[in-house]
């Protein structure tokens, strides 16, 4: 039991006040320093101090400390102790609180007040203690990652592999320190359960696509509500879904859908190209016909003959021609003979 209570009192060296019987060391030099400047006689001031301190500690200090002041070594020890004590006071009385920090002050364990940024004054260490907390820093908790699968059931009983990040900060330093046993672990658990709850209300398609933002804000809201229920003093700044994919086991099937979409699109593109071509061709043909027809109408007989002869010219000048007088010969003409003659004419 003794060691339980000793902690905050006995640990700091020269922490003042409580060491009257420790022989020739001066008892409790703190509080003495200013007096020494006023009065030249160190011994009388020390006596006075000892008397006061004896009263303060209920006569607990049974004397001692009078051996001091004799030799030069004694005075050296005295000054050393004074220096350590002043340093101690300096460190434990003045607290520099950075702009992003708050200092939570406890007096003998009980919460006293919270220091705002700037320099804060408190009683020295064993009495007042200051715990500095950064209330501006946004902390991250990552749940799930690309490396491992975090599977979750969606509302349509499909499975999604999801990874997300929760950003939070300390809103209320006192509550944060005193209300939750394990704040970080709590946030993690609440995040997991909130995400599961919200994802179970949407479909897989929604979770993977359009409703991501919606899910994020709903999870944030749910988390905040739950954590407020614990009076945790934590503010959830945001939830970001980093990844929402189908599980690896069915990923190929999802890729097939993508491929099918591409394929379908290419079918349609091809058909569109064909349609465009066909329309242009039809219009071109029709326009050409119209133009010729206009000419034809002006002089039908002549135009028709002209067209006939021109066409025949073009055709017949490029092909082998055989003119046969009697129709009967045609039947005896061996086709193979004609064929054989063809390359010769072609070669010449």
């Amino acid at each position, binding site marked *: 039991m003794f060691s339980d209570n000793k902690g905050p009192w006995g640990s700091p060296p020269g922490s003042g006040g409580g060491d009257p019987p420790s022989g020739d060391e001066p008892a409790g030099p703190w509080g003495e320093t200013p007096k020494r400047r006023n009065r030249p006689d160190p011994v009388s001031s020390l006596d006075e101090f000892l008397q006061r301190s004896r009263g303060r500690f209920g006569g607990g200090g049974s004397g001692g400390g009078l051996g001091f002041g004799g030799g030069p070594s004694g005075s050296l020890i005295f000054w050393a102790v004074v220096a350590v004590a002043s340093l101690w006071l300096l460190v434990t009385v003045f607290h520099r609180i950075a702009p992003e920090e708050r200092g939570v002050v406890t007096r003998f364990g009980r919460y006293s007040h919270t220091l705002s940024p700037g320099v804060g004054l408190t009683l020295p260490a064993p009495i007042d203690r200051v715990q500095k907390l950064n209330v501006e820093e946004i902390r991250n908790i990552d749940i799930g990652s690309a490396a491992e699968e975090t599977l979750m059931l969606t509302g349509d009983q499909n499975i999604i592999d999801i990874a997300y990040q929760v950003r939070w900060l300390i809103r209320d330093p006192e*509550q944060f320190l005193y209300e*939750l046993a394990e704040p970080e672990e709590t946030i993690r658990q609440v995040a997991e359960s909130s995400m*599961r709850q919200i994802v179970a209300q949407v479909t897989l398609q929604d979770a993977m696509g359009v409703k991501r933002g919606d899910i994020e804000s709903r999870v944030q809201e749910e988390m905040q509500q739950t954590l407020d229920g614990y009076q945790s003093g934590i503010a959830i700044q945001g939830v970001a879904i980093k990844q929402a994919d189908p599980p690896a*086991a069915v990923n190929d099937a999802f890729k097939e859908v993508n491929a099918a979409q591409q394929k379908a699109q290419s079918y349609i593109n091809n058909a569109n190209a064909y*349609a465009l071509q*066909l329309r242009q061709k039809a219009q071109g043909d029709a326009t050409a016909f119209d133009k010729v027809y206009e000419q034809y109408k002006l002089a039908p007989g002549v135009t028709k003959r002209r067209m006939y002869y021109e066409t025949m010219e073009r055709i017949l000048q*490029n092909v082998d021609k055989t003119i046969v007088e009697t129709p009967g010969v045609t039947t005896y003409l061996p086709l193979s003979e004609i064929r054989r003659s063809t390359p010769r004419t072609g070669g010449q």
Partner: protein
Amino acid sequence: MDAARRHPVASLLIGFLLLMMIFSSISIVPETRQGIITRFGKPVRIINRYKDGAEIGQVGAGIAFRIPFVERVDWIDKRVRDIEMDKQQVLSTDQLRLEVDAFARYRVVDPLRMYIRARSTDQFEQTLAPILGSQLRNELGKRPFASLLSPEREGVMGNIRQGLDRVARQYGAEIIDVRIKKADLPDGTPLQSAFDRMRTARQQEARSIEATGLKKAQIIRAEADAEAANTYAAAFGKDPEFYNFYRAMQSYETTFLGVNGNKPAQTNIILSPNDEYLKEFTGR
């Protein structure tokens, strides 16, 4: 003074003893703990007990006194703590399995009872974890699988919390919240069949997308064909006879000369002098 100087060792010893007395009669009570003071094992009072709605720093914590060597202090956490449960398999009314992982948050509101019944919060948590599991199984087992996915909707979690709270009250604790952290299909067949279902659903979707694409393409082609036919008919319909001639000329050219540099197969033409083309040739 003189006595102290004459017997330095003895005075040192006495001083040390006194100091120890002082220290052991004072307890520093932090905000995060509640203390039970027992005198020879008999609880006499509670320090820094949790009060609902009390402001931090108003009461309780700080310095507490006790009689040294006679009274002792045992500490119980004042903060919100959690009970974690092992994974539980839940069987729904439609015989589907779900693996559920949940946690509960509680706070000790009656430290004395907690001290008497469970000694410590750790002990209490160990006791309550299986009870949480069975509460969960009981409540969720009454429902079909579909509603297990979002049990928050039907107040199931509230029921579980109340059930657990009744037990926890006996230990002087209050259950603040019960939440399901994970609800997964168990590994093996249930998970695999879910994957299979997802896979086949996707494949079905892929087929249907492809078929729809084909259908659309076909319609586009047909429409274009119809439109072209319409254009042709409008133009050529003006004089079908001339069209016949005009088109025949084009056709001969294509057939015998080829289009766009496509050479047609070698052609031999056998003409009769009676032919229309050679009519003038014979000089008749």
